[in-house]
């Protein structure tokens, strides 16, 4: 294998890792940054997305892109319901919300197992493959990367420029102030939670096209998503997610390439521990501080 194709292969893997990390973490990090809540049932939101995608594809013959979108909507609705019924009672009690959502994750995954069995029909991966030199690559992986990039950009636009985004950021920084200015913070939280789980559902739908679909499809991604969120921190959704995904994705790709996927995950965790030892509140918080210091000079 010549140097060029090695580089192409590495880049392909890197992009793929970025896509997987970004997609699995984006909903989680939005909810965490905005509400301080780590949604332990995020994996189950992905699961709901995957199941809904598969059902709409097979039962209603809906084309794949639309089916994935429906997967997202299903998870988004589930999220709003969960927020209204459960999360709402745990605001300001972070560890309690962690435990409660973990219980929910257990209920949802086990219910899916009981009702629908250990596996449902998987959706075939679309688009086929392309070749560079002697190696062939799946087109879908590139599409997934594009989807991840698109979603991250969309989140950035929504939170930076829409009236909802302005209210949401206000609520995040100063909830009392926002309330005093007439923002319905309860609704902001519910919508934010819905957006977070919607993105989890989309991720689940996209992953469903590459993997066998079972009750634990989402749980395969949550450990990585947690690491990504911890490293990114809560100070800024966009910089946090981006910096964390790029750094961890690189480490994971490098070590997976050199050794195996397990070493890749261990390397990611070790990297995460190193990073938080230096920046306890995550990269986004650290960047925020640098930027502020820069302003003063």
């Amino acid at each position: 294998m010549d140097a060029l194709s090695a580089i192409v292969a590495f880049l392909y893997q890197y992009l793929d890792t970025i896509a997987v990390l970004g997609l699995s973490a984006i909903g989680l990090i939005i909810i965490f940054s905005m509400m301080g809540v780590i949604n332990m049932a995020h994996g189950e939101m992905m699961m709901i997305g995957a199941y809904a995608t598969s059902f709409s594809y097979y039962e209603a013959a809906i084309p794949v892109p639309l089916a994935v979108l429906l997967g997202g909507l299903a998870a988004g609705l589930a999220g709003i319901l969960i927020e209204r019924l459960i999360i709402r009672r745990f605001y300001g009690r972070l560890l309690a919300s962690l435990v409660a959502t973990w219980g929910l994750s257990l209920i949802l995954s086990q219910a899916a197992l009981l009702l629908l069995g250990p596996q449902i029909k998987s959706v075939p991966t679309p688009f086929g493959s392309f070749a560079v030199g002697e190696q062939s690559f799946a087109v879908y992986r590139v599409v997934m990367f594009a989807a991840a990039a698109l979603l991250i950009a969309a989140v950035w636009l929504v939170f930076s420029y829409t009236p909802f985004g302005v209210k949401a950021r206000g609520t995040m920084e100063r909830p009392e102030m926002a309330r005093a200015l007439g923002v319905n913070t309860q609704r902001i939280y519910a919508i934010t939670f819905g957006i977070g789980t919607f993105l989890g559902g989309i991720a689940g739908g996209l992953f469903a096209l590459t993997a066998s679909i079972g009750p634990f499809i989402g749980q395969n991604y949550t450990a990585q998503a947690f690491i990504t969120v911890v490293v990114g921190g809560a100070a800024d959704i966009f910089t946090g997610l981006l910096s964390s995904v790029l750094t961890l994705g690189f480490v994971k790709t490098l070590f997976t390439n050199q050794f195996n996927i397990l070493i890749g995950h261990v390397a990611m965790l070790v990297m995460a521990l190193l990073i938080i030892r230096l920046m306890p509140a995550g990269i986004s918080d650290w960047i925020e501080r640098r930027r502020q210091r820069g302003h003063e000079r």
Partner: protein
Amino acid sequence: MGRSSAVGRRASLPLDRIVFWLWVALLFGLLAVAPDMMSRFQLLNLSGFLLNGFLAMGLCLIWGSCGILSLGQGAFLGLGGYAYGIIGINLIEDHGNTILALAGGLAVPVVFAAFLGLVLFYGRLKGVYVAILMLVVALLFESFLNQTAGPGWAIGEAHLGGNNGLGRFSGVMREPPSLSFGLGEERGLEFVGSTRAFFYLVSALLLVTYLALQALVHSRYGLVMRAIRENPERTESLGHDIRLVQLLVFCLGAGLAAISGILYVSWGNFITPDVFGVYNNILPVIWVAVAGRMSLTATLVGTVFLAWLSQRLALEGDYALIVLGSILVLSMMVAPEGILKALGDAVMRGLRALQGRARQGAEGGA
């Protein structure tokens, strides 16, 4: 929370004391006569429930007393179990080195906890981060051990056995031995999982540990732990190195989980990577949260009851975990400090009211 505990010379109310010792006598009295009232199989099961008590009390200590939630206590249980099993397979049968296996089973997880604690607490990490990173650590151990199936993955005589783990299911010759003291013919003391000897060993250890932890949480160190839980910054400004205290408490919790791990392996003579998995990490959280994380007593009773309940439910059908999950969510919503704790507090309030009325009556009569 409102009730203050004994510190220094100020002993708690005598009523508290009396109820406490009556309670201990009742609980452990029941355990003392239990073997006479059940079959060997039931006894084996009861031993299995009881040995979780150390894990649960460890979580109760770090979370309930000190405010450190860990979603990955299974990591320490598993490390302890594997370390004991691996050393035991190599040394107990042939050399009678049970002490070494025990020491290894305790030391490996505690040293690992100290290493993690240096990063987590000295890095002043947020509580939620500590909680989920611990889960990630446990799950990574599960993935690691699941791929150790090949013959290359052996330490001396101990084959790691991939997802079959150490023990009879892996089809290799040796399984982790029971705790035993003495060698060969003179192996005077052997604690096989299904025996009364093992049951009494676990009960006695549990009693000693429970009393020691009660003494700890009601001591001045317990006061510092609770202070850290309530307000870490203030505790620091009063001259306490909270990072060190958190680290030590975390290591103690890991050591308690390790005891459960060692007992578990010597009880069933096997251990698989499942002990590091999601369920074995969420179960202790369910026990402690539902029972009452602020109370060792509630935790101990709740753990044994819930462990029994989940086994019962598992026999009935596949919905055991759904029921446990629902119990967890509901109890977090209805009784955030734990159901048994709430019940216990209500009983104590009732007793105190009775005591007060009795006293008034006595004064009125005099």
